C-alpha cells in the first residue's frame, strides 16, 4: 500500500506530468529504434523527379499550361482539375523561368506550382485547419497581451 500512495503522490502533482509524458515518449522512441529497419514504400503519393536542367528545378513536374499534369493523388476523381495548378505560370514567373536557371523555388512558390496544388487543392483541408491553428494561437496571445493588468 505504501508504494501505491507514493506513486499517487507523484501522479497527483501536475508538475510531474511533463516528465511523465516525456518518459513515455523516450520509451516509444526506443521501441522505434528497435523496430528498425523499416522498409520505405516506394509507391508514394505525389512522388517527385528531379531534373536539374529545367529552369523550374527542383519543382518541374511537366505538363502544359492550362492542361492536366500527371500527379499521383489518392483520390484523383475528387479533384477533377488536379494538375492544372501545377503547370500554370504567372507572367512574372514565366519571365523568371525564361531568363534564369536557378530560381525554381521562387517561381514555384509564386502562385501556381505543385506545392500550391497540394496545399490548396487536393489536401486543402489541411491548410484550413492549419490556418485555424495559427488564428487560435494568435487569439490567445493577443487576448492575453492586450488584457489590462487591472488587479
Amino acid at each position, binding site marked *: 500500500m505504501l508504494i501505491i500512495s507514493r506513486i499517487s503522490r507523484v501522479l497527483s502533482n501536475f508538475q510531474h*506530468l511533463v516528465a511523465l*509524458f516525456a518518459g513515455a515518449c523516450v520509451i516509444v522512441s526506443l521501441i522505434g529504434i528497435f*523496430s528498425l529497419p523499416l522498409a520505405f514504400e516506394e509507391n508514394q503519393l505525389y512522388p517527385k523527379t528531379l531534373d536539374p536542367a529545367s529552369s523550374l528545378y527542383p519543382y518541374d513536374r511537366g505538363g502544359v499550361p492550362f492542361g492536366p499534369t500527371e500527379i499521383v493523388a*489518392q483520390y484523383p476523381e*475528387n479533384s477533377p482539375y488536379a494538375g492544372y495548378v501545377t503547370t500554370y505560370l504567372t507572367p512574372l514567373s514565366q519571365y523568371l523561368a525564361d531568363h534564369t536557371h536557378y530560381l525554381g523555388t521562387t517561381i514555384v512558390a509564386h502562385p501556381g506550382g505543385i506545392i500550391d496544388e497540394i496545399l490548396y487543392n487536393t489536401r486543402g483541408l*489541411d491548410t484550413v485547419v492549419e490556418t485555424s*491553428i495559427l488564428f487560435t494561437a494568435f*487569439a490567445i496571445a493577443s487576448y492575453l497581451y492586450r488584457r489590462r493588468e487591472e488587479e
Partner: protein
Amino acid sequence: MPDIGGSDLFVLAFGDILHYFNPYTATLFLLALLFTGLVIASRPERQLDIAFGGDAYYAKMTTVSEMRFRRFMAIACGLASMGAMASGDIFNFTLFVSLVGITNVGIVSAVRIRHVLNAAYEYGIVAMVATLPLFGGAALILGTTGTLSIQALAAGGFAVPLVGKALLALGVIGEGMAPFYAAKAEMFRAPGAPYVIMCSLSSLLIFLRVVEIVITI
C-alpha cells in the same frame, strides 16, 4: 475492412481528404455538436467558494470579455473535435487534434487564477511536445505504406508498423488523457463550467476516435 464501428453511412470528399461517418463516429460527432450547442446557449455559472476557517463564502465572477473569449475558444474546440471525429485522413486528424490541444489551453489560459495558469502552462507544454508523436506517427505511416487515407489503409494490404500506431496513440494521449488528466483536473477548478466541460469532452472524443483509427488501420 475490419468491422469496428459499423458500416459507413456517409462520405464527404474534400480532394484527397475524405470525411466519413460510421455509426460510431457519427455518435461521437453528434455529441460534439450537442455540447457545442450547449456552449453557445449557456452562460457560465457563478462559482461559490468557501473561505476556510469561517462561515463566509464568496462568488467568483467571470468578466464579460473573459467569458466571450472563452466561449469563442470553446466553440472552436467543439468544431475541432467535430472535425477530428469525421476526418478520414491521418495527417488531417493529427492537425485537428493539435487544434483541440491549443484551444484547450486557450479555454483555461484566460482565467486569472495563478494555480490554474500554472496547470495550463504545464498542459500546454505536453500538448506542444505531443505534436512530435502525432506528426511523427503520421509521417512514419505515410513512409511505410505510401498513403494517409484511413479508408485506403483499412482496405488492407499495408503493413502499418506498430511503432507508428503507438506514436499516434501516445500523441493523442498527450493532448489530454489519463493519466495526464491530473493536470486537466487542476485546470477544471476554473469557473465557467460549459467551457471547461468542452476541454474534457474534446480530449475524450479524440481519444475514442484514435482507438478506432488504431484498430482500423
